[in-house]
């Protein structure tokens, strides 16, 4: 905990419990959970000893769900109720999905912005499907680790836009996880790799998964992982290779484009099998069943597959070039290229990456597990288990953020590859007398026109004090936090009035919808949830108490006068008393009250720790 961390080295701090934290790789094809145990980060297996959980969810008629291998086995036979590659649907609108996906589901037309898939168990959104996968991983971790989790780090593709990140975080919330951080997958891989190899210098992470592609250029410097640039494509991966191969099968076998879902799933399965076989073999024989039950048998050679997928691999090379340029370095500056993601097993991918970076990529780390392991290492640090840890991750925003201006143009507000957290303020004025509201359209992307960028949200500013046109000065601040998520605040400057903001996400759930889903999922096990909630709140209370006591012991006298300290001690003992009770709300309030009482103290401590960081380099020495 931070209050502990900023104490002077060597000073005694209260011993604290090891907090259980996990890292999750929520992949397009497979998902994993990892945790640091006895100093070692490792992925956790299920009862059958399997580490990889296929990211497949099957909805059953009785309302229950099957997740993982069993669901995967039913993917072709029960195609409409079995959701595969749901990651590709996260934070996406129905038109994106229709444009990009091959043989997708029966979508329900609804007025909400989030597409829902029709299943026998009801209509589900991508967020809910992902939450089912996350729940299984959470339960696996709780069972293996034997206690409640304090939090999780969820890895997301670096190139995920804000809507996709928000959707992932919402899914984690639905799954009952406390999200400590959304961590970019290539950064997670760099952490696992960098700490393992004790590497320093510039590395490139080439991460080609089942449905997403990222490339990140990082500078590693004594535990600091600084992302210099990232680029990618959030709808490009091994699935797309499978689609191209499946299309070729269809052509060869004379199967028309209107193949049904079950047939497409079988084609995809066969395509994947062929692709994997060609990692070792030069040719593979394939068999595809037509609708009339006749079978086409043929052969796929490596060179034909290369012809099919080369354009796709080439699509990963221009982002590599862009990332290098954005990082301001040349190919020769890259000291190591690390391959991540199952699709980097395809030999052709390795060849092409080697040709571009002019060095053989590193393939000796397990491309499937490295992201989860990196996420677990960061989760352990974030949970506060390593107060002396120097590891620090400095990441960037992958796509520029902009605002819609006159004529459907986008004005860039924050450029891609800016280090997060970042904030930008912009002033607006009213154009009508007495105007009390205005709307701001936020977009993400590199293109100039609104229709070519991705719409994130429309923010309506309300409660602007009525004035003559042009007199109001509304300062709108766009803050991107360390998760890459956007938060917008607004204030009218001449009156100081805080504007109320209503957010209408373009492709996400509104807060109310999430709350509703959370309530629904809790109703099934209300008592269970209640006791869980109380326990969580008490743990939180204990944490606050422990941290504050330790802080007071360290430097209470330094930063507080007697009266201030008395007030703090008073509300501290109040919390200690209430925390033993059973009223969740009361505990919450007591924590809030204590934090309010401490606010000046906390600020002084933080300021002083920054001063300490700056000390030894007095400003004056440069100026004389």
């Amino acid at each position, binding site marked *: 905990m*931070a209050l502990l961390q900023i104490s002077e080295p060597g000073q005694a701090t209260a011993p604290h419990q090891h907090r259980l934290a996990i890292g999750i790789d929520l992949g397009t094809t497979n998902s994993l959970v990892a945790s640091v145990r006895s100093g070692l980060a490792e992925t956790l297996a299920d009862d059958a000893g399997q580490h990889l959980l296929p990211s497949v969810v099957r909805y059953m008629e009785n309302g229950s769900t099957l997740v993982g291998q069993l669901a995967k086995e039913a993917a072709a036979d029960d195609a409409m109720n079995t959701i595969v590659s749901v990651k590709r649907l996260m934070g996406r609108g129905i038109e994106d999905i229709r444009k990009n996906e091959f043989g997708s589901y029966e979508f329900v037309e609804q007025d909400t912005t989030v597409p829902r898939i029709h299943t026998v168990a009801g209509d589900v959104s991508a967020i809910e499907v992902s939450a089912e996968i996350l729940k299984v991983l959470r339960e696996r971790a709780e069972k293996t680790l034997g206690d409640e989790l*304090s939090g999780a780090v969820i890895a997301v593709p670096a190139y995920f836009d804000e809507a996709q990140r928000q959707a992932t975080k919402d899914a984690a919330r639905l799954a009952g996880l406390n999200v400590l951080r959304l961590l970019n997958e290539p950064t997670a891989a760099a952490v696992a790799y960098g700490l393992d190899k004790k590497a320093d210098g510039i590395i490139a992470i080439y991460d080609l998964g089942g449905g997403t592609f990222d490339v990140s250029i990082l500078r590693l410097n004594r535990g600091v992982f600084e992302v210099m640039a990232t680029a990618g494509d959030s709808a490009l991966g091994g699935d797309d290779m499978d689609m191209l191969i499946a299309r070729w099968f269809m052509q060869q076998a004379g199967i028309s484009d209107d193949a049904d879902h079950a047939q497409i799933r079988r084609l995809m399965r066969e395509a994947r099998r062929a692709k994997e076989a060609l990692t070792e073999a030069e040719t593979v024989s394939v068999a595809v069943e037509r609708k009339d039950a006749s079978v086409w048998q043929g052969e796929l050679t490596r060179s034909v597959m290369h012809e099919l997928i080369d354009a796709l691999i080439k699509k990963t090379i221009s982002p590599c070039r862009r990332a290098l340029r954005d990082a301001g370095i040349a190919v020769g500056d890259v000291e190591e290229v690390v391959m991540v993601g199952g699709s980097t097993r395809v030999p052709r991918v390795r060849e092409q990456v080697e040709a571009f970076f002019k060095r053989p990529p590193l393939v000796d780390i397990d491309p499937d597990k490295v992201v989860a392991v990196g996420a677990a290492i960061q989760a352990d640090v974030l949970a506060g288990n390593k107060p002396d840890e120097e590891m620090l991750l400095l990441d960037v925003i992958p796509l520029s953020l902009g605002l819609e201006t006159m004529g459907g143009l986008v004005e860039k507000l924050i450029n891609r590859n800016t*280090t997060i957290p*970042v*904030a930008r303020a912009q002033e607006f004025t009213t154009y009508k007398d007495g105007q009390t509201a205005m709307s701001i359209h936020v977009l993400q992307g590199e293109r100039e026109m609104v229709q070519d960028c991705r719409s994130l949200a429309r923010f309506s500013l309300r409660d602007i004090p009525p004035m003559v046109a042009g007199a109001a000065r509304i300062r709108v601040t766009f*803050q991107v936090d360390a998760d890459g998520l956007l938060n917008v605040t607004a204030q009218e400057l001449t009156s100081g009035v805080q504007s109320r903001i209503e957010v209408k996400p373009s492709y996400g759930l509104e807060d109310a919808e999430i709350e509703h889903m959370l309530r629904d999922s809790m109703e099934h096990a209300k008592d269970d949830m209640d006791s869980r909630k109380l326990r969580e709140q008490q743990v939180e209370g204990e944490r606050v108490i422990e941290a504050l006591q330790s802080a007071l012991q360290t430097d209470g006298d330094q930063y507080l006068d007697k009266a201030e300290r008395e007030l703090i001690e008073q509300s501290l003992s109040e919390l200690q008393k209430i925390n033993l009770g059973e009223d969740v709300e009361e505990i919450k309030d007591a924590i809030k009250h204590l934090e309010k009482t401490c606010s000046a103290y906390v600020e002084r401590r933080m300021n002083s720790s920054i001063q300490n960081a700056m000390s030894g380099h007095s400003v004056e020495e440069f100026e004389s």
Partner: protein
Amino acid sequence: MSFDLSSDYFHLFGIPVSFSVDTGALMQRYRELQQVVHPDRFATSSEQERRLSLQYATHINEGLRVLKDPLERARYLLQLKGVQWDDEQTTLSDPEFLMQQMELRESLSEVREQSDPVEAVADIITNVDAIIQENTRLLEGLLQSEDLDNLDKAKLQVRKMQFLQKMKSEAESLEAKLEDEL
């Protein structure tokens, strides 16, 4: 003494107020500061601490962005020296510069006719980058002098670099478009 968000970025990073910046020292200090304030250090802290941490880390990132980028740094430095940046556009009357701009624009508009348009636009960006670097060196010379006349020249030089920067972002936008079409 308390940490002052209003002190200038040079002081925040403890480096001399000058256009020439020791990038190594800057980065070193940047890492030291973020080690202390970054939100990752406060993931399980109170809401207030998380808010402060976000605010400080954002401020330090902004400082680094300004000090690292020559154009931003020059603007900032000139502002500290009392130069006012009005948003009205000063017309540039440097024929050589204008000619160069026109040529760049022309080659940008002809990119699609090249055999490998993505490569062609990448070349233009590299070219613009080189011109930006050259102009940065000119700017550096002007900013080292305390001569008021040179401050005006520096202001003009900054304008030129803004044009180049705009050209670069247009080229990048075109590149994104071409890559989308692949």
